[in-house]
C-alpha cells in the first residue's frame, strides 16, 4: 500500500492534470456549464418529492418541510456516488490509448475520475446550502461532522471505482452491470425515505455501507443531531477494508492491463 501511495505522490501533477482534463472537457462546448452539477440532484429531489407525497397520501400525515430537506441533502452525496462510480468504472477503458502507450501508475485514472466528480459535488453542495438557509433550516455545531462524512463516502467510492475499473478492463460487461445496478441503486439506500420507515428491516438497509453515511448527513444537517456513531463506524471500517482489498486486487492485476485492453 505504501509504495502505491508513494508513487501517487510522485505523480501528483499528473493526477492533477488528468482531473483537470476531465472537468475541462465536460464543461467545454456545453450550454449548461456548471448547471450540470445541479441537474442530477434536482432530478433526485424532484423524484423524492413525488415519492414523499405518495407516502403522505397513504399515511394521511402531511409532507413536512424537514422531509423534503432530508431528501435534498441526501441527493447531493448520492448523485456524487453514482457519477463517481460510473465514471470510475469506465476510467481505464476510456484511457485505453494511454494505457497501452505510456507508463504511469494506473491508479491515477479511477482517482482522477472520482476527483473530477468532487467538483460537481462541491458546486451542488454550495447551491444546496443556500437553498437550505433560504427555507429556514438553521446552522448547528453538528455540521462539523460533514467533512468526516464526506471522507467516509470518498473512501467507499474510491474503493468501488478502483475495483470496478480493473474488473471492467477484463470483462467488458461489468460496465453494463454497473449501469443496471446504478439505475435502481436509489431504492437500495435511504435517499427518498428514512431507514426508520423500514421498521424491523432497518438493520438490513443500514448494512449497505452508504446508508449510514446518508442518514448521518440528514441527521446532522436537518435534524441538528449527532450521527449514529456505531453505524458510521461500521461504514468507515467497511470502507477501509474494501479499499484495502480493492487496492491489493488492482495492484495485482495492473501488470496485465496493457495486454487485456
Amino acid at each position, binding site marked *: 500500500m505504501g509504495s502505491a501511495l508513494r508513487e501517487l505522490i510522485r505523480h501528483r*501533477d*499528473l493526477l*492533477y*492534470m*488528468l482531473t483537470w*482534463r476531465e472537468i*475541462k*472537457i465536460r464543461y*467545454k*462546448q456545453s450550454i449548461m456549464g456548471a448547471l450540470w452539477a445541479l441537474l442530477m440532484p434536482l432530478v433526485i429531489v424532484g423524484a423524492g418529492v413525488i415519492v414523499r407525497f405518495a407516502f403522505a397520501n397513504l399515511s394521511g400525515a402531511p409532507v413536512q418541510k424537514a422531509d423534503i430537506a432530508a431528501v435534498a441533502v441526501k441527493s447531493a452525496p448520492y448523485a456524487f456516488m453514482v457519477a463517481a462510480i460510473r465514471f470510475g468504472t469506465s476510467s481505464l477503458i476510456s484511457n485505453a*490509448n*494511454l*494505457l*497501452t*502507450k*505510456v*507508463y*504511469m501508475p494506473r491508479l491515477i485514472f479511477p482517482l482522477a475520475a472520482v476527483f473530477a466528480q468532487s467538483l460537481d459535488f462541491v458546486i451542488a453542495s454550495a447551491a444546496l446550502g443556500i437553498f437550505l438557509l433560504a427555507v429556514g433550516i438553521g446552522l448547528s455545531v453538528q455540521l462539523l461532522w460533514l467533512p468526516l462524512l464526506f471522507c467516509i463516502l470518498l473512501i467507499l467510492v474510491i474503493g468501488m471505482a478502483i475495483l470496478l475499473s480493473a474488473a471492467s478492463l*477484463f*470483462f*467488458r*460487461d*461489468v460496465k453494463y*452491470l454497473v449501469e443496471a445496478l446504478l439505475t435502481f441503486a436509489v431504492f437500495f439506500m435511504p435517499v427518498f425515505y428514512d431507514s426508520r420507515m423500514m421498521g424491523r428491516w432497518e438493520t438490513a438497509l443500514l448494512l449497505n455501507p452508504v446508508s449510514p453515511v446518508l442518514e448521518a448527513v440528514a441527521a446532522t444537517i436537518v435534524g441538528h443531531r449527532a450521527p449514529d456513531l456505531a453505524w458510521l463506524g461500521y461504514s468507515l471500517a467497511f470502507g477501509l477494508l474494501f479499499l484495502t482489498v480493492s487496492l491489493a486486487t488492482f495492484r495485482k492485476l495492473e*501488470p496485465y492491463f*496493457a*495486454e*487485456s485492453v
Partner: protein
Amino acid sequence: MSDAALEVQHVFKKFRRGEIYDSLRDLIPALSGRMFRARPDGELTQREFWALQDVSFEVARGEAFGIIGDNGAGKSTMLKLLTGIMRPTSGSIQVRGRLSALIEVSAGFHPDLTGRENIFLNGTILGLKRDEIRRRFDEIVAFSGLEAFIDTPVKRYSSGMFARLGFSVAAHVDPDVLLVDEVLSVGDYIFQRKCVERMTQVIERGTTVVFISHNLRAVGNLCKRSLLLQRGTVAMLGPTSDVLKRYLGGSQERRALEGGRDLEITRVLVQNEHGPAVEFKSGDRMWITVEARAHRRHDDVSVVVQIVDDRNYPLFDTCTDRLGREALILEAGQRVTCTFEVELGLAEGTFHVDGYLFRYTTNEPYDRWATAATFFVAGPAAVRGPVNLHPRLTACEVLEPLAMEPGVPSPAG
C-alpha cells in the same frame, strides 16, 4: 554495482494466442465447461507462446544502443517492457533515472483541448512536473513552430501539426534514458531535420538512448552497439556494424522462391576489397556476386543485378549480356557465379540489390530475388538525393544590379 543505465536480465515474456474471455457472459460458460472437463487439459498452455526468451543486455550511461530485428521478433514487446507498460513474465529490468519514450508522442492529446492545454497535459503524462513545463513552455512552442495556433483546439490541427506538437513536447522531457521508436519521420522535411538535430544534441549531452527501429541507417549512424532479436531471442549482441552484417546476411536465408524452379539464384553477395561488407563510402568500389544453379539445361541465360533505394525505386541495373557476355549455357546441375564491379556513384542512403535471371532471347524472367542484399552508403554532407554527381563549386559571386536591367528599378528613378 555497475554504472549501467539500463539492465535487462534473463527476461521472458509470455503471451496468449487467440481470444481471451472478455466478458462475464463468456467466462461463465467457459468456466463451467472447464469444470466438466469439456476441454482437454493443457489447452491453455498450448495457446501460449514466448514473445521474448532469455533476453539480457546492459546499456551504459550515455550510450546509444540499437535494437533491430524483423517484424514479430519481439522489438515492440521489449519496448513495452522497458517503459513499464508491460511487465516481464520472469526476469528483471532495471532502469536508473527517468525513462521516457518517444513513441506515439501524441497519445496523450485530447482533441477538444487547445495546443497550450495539451502541452501541459501531455507533458505531465510524459513525466514532467507542471513547473518544468511552465519553464520550458516557450521553448516547446518555438520548437513546434505553432505559435499562431497554440490557443486553437488540436482537433482543428492538421495531422502534421498534431505530430509536430507531440514531438516537441516529447523532445523537451530531458530524460536520463530515452527510448526512440520510428518517430523521427513526422512533419515536413524542415521539421524532420530539426528532430534529427535534436536527437544528436540529446546524445551529445550524454543521455542514454535506445533506438528500436527498422531504419537501419539511423541505427548504424547513431549506435555503436546493437542487439539483434530473432524470434524473441538474442541472436547477436555487439558492435552495430557486425550486427547489421549478420542481420542483413541472415536475410538471404529467408527468401521465398519466386520464379525459379529449374533455374534459381542461390546467393547474392555484396563485397568490398576485403570481403563481404554492408557499409560503403560514396565513390567506393563494390563487387556484387550472383550465384545460380540450373536443375536442367538452359542455353540462353543472362544475369541481371539491380540497385534500388530504400523505397524500392530502381536506380540502376546492368547484366551480363549488356556487358558483352554472350548468353550463358548451363547444363543440369551446373552452377554459375558472376561478379559485377561497380563504382558507387551513390549519395548517403540505404540501398538494396535485386538479382534476376533472364531468358536472353525473349527477356522473360527465370528467377527474381528482390532485396537479396542491403548496403549503406555514407556520402558527403553536401549531397542530397540518391546519386552523387561529385559537385564542386566553381563560381559564386555577388553582383551589383545592372543599371539597365529590365524589371529592376534603377536607383536614379
